[in-house]
């Protein structure tokens, strides 16, 4: 028999990345800014989105695609705080969302009426780091109950994110969490990471977050 070696050199992620490029193009065509919210489970993604949607959702024409592993719980929580369409993606045990799920989600949205799209990824600081969903940027959340070394333990996620949100800062008086050290650890991994510090419970820090979001959304054209 004759065994031949065929050189291939194809990226394994290319199929996902091709879909992500299509997603990015569709969002750009409708002037939609999409943020991919990533974090470990329980860091406060849904709570932050609840406050955000209630405060500025209508003004920024915000929509959400959320990825619970099981249940519609997050989507149901968000739907109570906004009239914006919430499209739930049930990943059925998968550890991340992929671009094809976002592309399917876009089909259920009227993108002409959307200015800002939040993608609430599956709670996981490992797998979602490597999957391009077509977003403008990844935003990594971590809470003050998680430890200052989170950025060092999960460097790829913090390296691939453009923004970070330190959540649950209302708990700081009850913890030994060193904010300066946590931010320094994150900047050691990604010096360009821009930080927000928020409490979805008290509202502390949310105004700066809202102002940032408003800067990301283009005004709707008036005819």
């Amino acid at each position, binding site marked *: 028999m004759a065994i*031949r070696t*065929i050189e291939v050199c194809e990226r394994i992620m290319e199929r996902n990345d091709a879909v992500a490029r299509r997603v990015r193009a569709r969002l750009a065509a409708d002037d939609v800014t999409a943020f991919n919210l990533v974090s470990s489970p329980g860091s406060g993604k849904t709570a932050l989105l609840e406050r955000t949607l209630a405060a500025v959702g209508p003004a920024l024409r915000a929509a959400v695609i959320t990825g619970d592993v099981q249940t519609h719980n997050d989507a149901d929580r968000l739907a109570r705080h906004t009239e914006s369409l919430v499209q739930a993606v049930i990943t059925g045990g998968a550890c991340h969302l992929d671009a094809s799920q976002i592309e399917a989600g876009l089909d259920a949205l009227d993108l002409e009426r959307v200015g800002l799209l939040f993608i609430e990824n599956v709670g996981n600081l490992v797998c979602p780091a*490597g999957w391009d969903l077509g977003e403008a940027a990844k935003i990594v959340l971590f809470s003050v109950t998680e430890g200052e070394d989170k950025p060092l333990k999960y460097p790829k996620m913090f390296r691939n994110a453009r923004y970070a949100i330190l959540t649950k800062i209302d708990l700081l008086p009850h913890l030994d969490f060193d904010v300066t050290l946590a931010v320094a650890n994150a900047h050691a991994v990604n010096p360009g990471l821009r930080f927000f510090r928020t409490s979805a419970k008290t509202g502390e820090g949310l105004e700066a977050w809202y102002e940032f979001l408003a800067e990301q959304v283009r005004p709707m054209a008036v005819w």
Partner: protein
Amino acid sequence: MHELSLALEVCRLAGEAGARQGGGTIRAVGVEVGDDAGIEVANFRFCLEALLAEPPFYEARADLVPARGDVLRLLYVEIDDGHPDD
């Protein structure tokens, strides 16, 4: 947890590469795996070997080539074209 889906994608790409060459039996696949690729290598190898043990691969070998960075590429496939050696 996503190692199985990535292993499935390796098999899909390998099958396509084999078909482009006119078919034959795939005897081995070579995959470059970066140390920052987000892959648990032992898990990935287990998934890939399990898939390569079944048709249409017939016990094909999985060659995992370590690399730096987040690279994850199908480098090569070895194909038995079924023809006798020259």
